[in-house]
């Protein structure tokens, strides 16, 4: 058997090599802990038809009532919408929309009559809606200076580069700077109730309470703490498209300058190109009289805001709200659909489970 194979492993021949000492031996031994041995106690659930079935039925039983509730609530909300863009010749605002020019000093006004066929009982919210207006365009979204809006004096005088090309005008810093502020919605909407006896009663519109509380009190602030806003905004210029400087937005000092709520609402850029923003609130006066009784109304619009160049639309919406917000049948329908699908799947699974489960069991046993 000589040289039956050259075994490199035979280097040691048959001299027994004594192993390492006992001391080092112990230290190398892995610890016997549950974690290291992968034997942590564990709950081992398996998704079988049996365990999933009840879940499906429960989801179905929960979702369908929720959906019905949502749907009914949404349907009870009253909403009225009128488009006043003035695209058609027949539209009252056609002239205004046609003759629009940025430089005109005389405001163009149009009057839109409408009829509410049912009374609006609770608080009514007045929205303006814009279509095809890309407030979510990247260039647009970033075109603002939050520290300027927060009242920072340095930023007031030297607005952030993000505001370009709306940062400076005639070498003066624009306050508020940026494309968003520059394009602020500036139509004035007024609402009149046409009494059956022929008088036009103006409906009081609340200008406050339409913005987030935190926005108004924390995120936005006028510069310098100077109560005289004209002085505070000294050295700045109004945005190019504005007719008035920022310190003349409202007579009320608590709603003027950067903390003007119309302005704050506009500054919250919309998610989609078709959006609506809260404009005014009509508060309920007493529980006896509906906020807006059934009847004829007139909407008076000071038409300042051009949308036809980008094929946009302007709307006014009157709406009541519920606990779940405004009119939204989608959520209700979705809940009902998902609930029914779950219920249906539950039934299907029950059948499948019954048939296959039995078959498997019997197969196992016969094996």
């Amino acid at each position, binding site marked *: 058997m000589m*040289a039956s194979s050259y*075994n490199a492993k035979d280097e040691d*021949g048959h001299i027994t090599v004594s192993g390492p000492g006992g001391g080092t031996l112990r230290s190398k031994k892995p610890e016997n802990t549950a974690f290291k041995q992968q034997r*942590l106690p564990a709950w081992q659930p398996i998704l079988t038809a049996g365990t999933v079935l009840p879940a499906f039925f429960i989801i179905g039983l929960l979702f369908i009532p929720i959906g019905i509730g949502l749907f009914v609530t949404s349907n009870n909300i009253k909403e009225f919408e009128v488009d006043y863009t003035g695209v058609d010749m027949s539209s009252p605002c056609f002239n205004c929309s046609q003759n629009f020019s940025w430089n005109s000093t005389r405001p163009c006004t149009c009057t839109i009559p409408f009829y509410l066929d049912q009374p609006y009982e609770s608080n009514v919210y007045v929205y303006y809606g814009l279509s095809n207006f890309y407030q979510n365009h990247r260039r647009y979204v970033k075109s603002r200076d939050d520290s300027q809006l927060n009242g920072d004096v340095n930023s007031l005088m030297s607005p952030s580069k993000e505001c370009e090309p709306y940062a400076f005008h005639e070498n003066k810093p624009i306050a508020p700077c940026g*494309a968003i502020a520059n394009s602020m919605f500036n139509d004035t909407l007024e609402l009149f109730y046409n009494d059956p006896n022929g008088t036009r009663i103006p409906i009081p519109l609340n200008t406050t309470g339409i913005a987030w509380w935190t926005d108004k009190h924390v*995120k936005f602030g006028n510069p310098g703490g100077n109560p005289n806003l004209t002085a505070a905004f000294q050295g700045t210029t109004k945005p190019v498209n504005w007719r008035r400087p920022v310190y003349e937005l409202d007579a009320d000092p608590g709603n003027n300058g950067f903390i003007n709520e119309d302005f704050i609402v506009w500054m919250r850029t919309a*998610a989609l190109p078709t959006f609506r923003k809260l404009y005014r609130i009509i508060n309920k006066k007493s529980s006896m009289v509906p906020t807006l009784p059934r009847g004829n109304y007139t909407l008076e619009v000071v038409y300042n805001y051009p949308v036809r160049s*980008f094929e946009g639309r302007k709307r006014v919406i009157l709406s009541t709200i519920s606990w779940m917000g405004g009119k939204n049948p989608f959520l209700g329908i979705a809940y009902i659909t998902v609930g029914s699908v779950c219920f249906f799947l539950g039934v299907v*699974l029950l059948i499948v489970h019954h048939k296959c489960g039995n078959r498997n069991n019997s197969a196992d046993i016969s094996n």
Partner: protein
Amino acid sequence: MAFRTEQEVDSLHATIECEQPQPDLYKFVGRINIYKDKEEPSCRPLGAENLLLRGATLKNTQHIYAVAVYTGMETKMALNYQSKSQKRSAVEKSMNAFLIVYLCILISKAVINTVLKYAWQWSPDRDEPWYNHRTENERQRHMVIRAFTDFLAFMVLFNYIIPVSMYVTVEMQKFLGSYFITWDEEMFDEELGEGAQVNTSDLNEELGQVEYVFTDKTGTLTENNMEFIECCVDGNVYIPHAICNGQILSAASSIDMIDSSPGGYRREHEDLFFRALCLCHTVQVKEEETVDGIKRGIHQGRPTSFYISSSPDEVALVEGMKRLGYTYLRLKDNYMEILNKDDEIERFELLHVLNFDSVRRRMSVIVKSSSGEYLLFCKGADSSIFPRVVSGKVEQVKARVEQNAIEGLRTLCVAYRRLSESEYQEACHHLNEAKLALQDREQRLAQAYDIIERDFVLLGATAVEDRLQEKAADTIESLHKAGMKVWVLTGDKMETAAATCYASKLFRRSTQILELTKKRTEEQSLHDVLFELNRTVLRQRSISGLSVDCLDFGLIIDGATLSAVLKANQERAGSGNYREIFLEICRNCSAVLCCRMAPLQKAQIVKLIKASKEHPITLAIGDGANDVSMILEAHVGIGIMGKEGRQAARNSDYAIPKFKHLKKMLLVHGHYYYIRIAELVQYFFLQNVCFIFPQFLYQFFCGFSQQPLYDTAYLTLYNISFTSLPILLYSLVEQHITMETLKRDPSLYRDIAKNSLLRWPVFLYWTCLGVFDAVIFFFGAYFLFDNTTFTSNGQLMTTNTQMMFGNWTFGTLVFTVLVFTVTLKLALDTHHWTWINHFVIWGSLLFYVIFSLLWGGIIWPFLNYQRMYYVFMQMLSSGPAWLSIILLITVSLLPDVIKKVLCRTMCPTATERAQSNRPCLTVEPSTIFMLSQSSSRMSF
């Protein structure tokens, strides 16, 4: 002519001619021409026996004088060394393939959006409406540059679809996960004092994908610790220190027993037998190191010296003889000294050694006894001895040998022949003539041996056991059941290796053995043999058809034939592709034994299988330096931390103390790592599709202006902190089936074979799921925000205070649904909920909420925008937001749950069955019994 001092060596004037360097360790052809003054130069042959290989150590001499013939990279060992190449796992490969798909998706998304952007803003009113002008700089930029920047901007916007953090997480998972191997107590060997060792963590999951196991035999399957078991002289069995025929007999008494039995003839054979074993070997004696200056002699009874031989069998035999009373003392001045059981020293003059070679499979010595008799002792494999035997109790010995071989013992037969003076002279003449031949030396020697080794008188047989490693058979059986093909690659000779294979259940009794050996190819041409075998295999397969597993094949191939198969292919590429036929045969064999392999051949065969058309995953396991090349070549290399050296362990990817640990390594750790990493990879892609696809959809609603849907903080932290920890921990601790089940039922390993969890259909399913979820997120939020498309009127998503929500709220809503869905999807996939899983999954959701509250709750002075201020709180204060979040999460998770439940119920995989059987198994042990019974019946 001896050279004992440096001066003497210095006086030698000679030249050496040798062949070009070649990797065959057992072959060396050369000659030395010695020039002496005035005399004719004398020429001596040099063979493999004259060559010391690199790395050899001197054992029984202080020094030698030698000439270096090959150095550096030309040494045989270096030529057998396989350069270490980087190994990548199959998972990593599919990961990269998926990544390329995602890269294409990313680029096409960016291209689509860029094209659409320019199509959309063709009209200047859309491009630059009065409310949204460009700066002068931007306006002046060239159209092409603008388009290119837009393209890049889209790439940046969508780049999160490429899960960069996946690579980080995968690396962490592999690194941390590999500790579980090191920590495993079951893989710790008390004797060795060592546990498993991980040298690379890159291949953890590959352990779950192994299809071919290439194992070394000696030291891997076996202990490499030969033990003399018994010998049999003329049918009488001698077992040292063991039970013999029901009686416990010491060595001496067993001899005594034979003494008492009548018959001088028998006595004579017995004496000859023991002497034969003491003389017929090439063992060398190394005396023990001197202790305290006193050299302890061998005379004092018990062993104080070591036997050294290149073959452990011989050592075992000589040691066994010592235990039976005959001690081989030393070889001194060509005299072999034996201490017989009567404590007398017998001296034999060693005249010739007829070396072992693998073709003859026997070796002989010719000695001259003190009484002047010439004796030829021969020992060798039964197949090479019996045909040459003329007398002796052939039948009894043969029966014993066969019985021993069945038990997996290495058997040798011993025979002798008395030579007369004239016969001896003739033999001498033959031998010397052959030895001096320069051409065809091997052939002429073989002829000479053939003439001398004949007319034997059979003495008996020996049995040596190379004990199988603990549980080696069980391990191999498990590997077979797990669908792996086990190949034994060994340098040993065929019979020994085959015996071990039977013992280790690699070959079963029912296995039909196909032989592809040199012996056979000498009779027929290689071509014919290959085709014949192939026909056999194919015919059997077509006949058996249904009952495939009842007939399995085992193939035995030796090194010489293998190289012939491979070489033939190179020479005549294309025509008569032996390689293909060979692979075809191998594919149909459940077990293959390759014997007489050189180290590089081991690597070659691994490479051959690796390169075959299915590209199977291979694993090589071995313990010695000769296994290093195959360890490096295979996809996964495992080293056994044997008694001999650490070279294999050092070069391996994983090192384990014993062969039996391979079972847990593959069936448990490998399986776990594979499902863990597969889920990790798929989940990461899903998570990123869900994340980015809504952003892609949003571009259609924001004028393709690259407006991000989510806030920067969310974009950055999504992969890092909101979603990565649960999946990382999942991929560390998930156990979809218990360890016990995995070990008990190796066939579960088949469920994950062939990278089954990362195949394209599965990948497609996950991607579709991701896209579905993304569509649900986006359009769910869209319809809730939009008030014209779906509901024609109605204002949505407002709080009770009627504040309108902006684009950031929209993004936050989508993001919240996304984080919850993705985390809950993982929760649904988790089968093993330890406290860690609970902590991480619920913890990361909680972290998201807390982070969002904090992020939106403060005016951060270092930011130049405050767009997230109070957005999250405002959203949560709105009832519909809650309702829609719950709805969207439910809808997103629904399809996956349904798919899982239906698959499990309609066509459960073995894994799923094992999962659902779990509770009933613990309750009804009888079922286990029945199941295991039926499974074992199936396997036989």
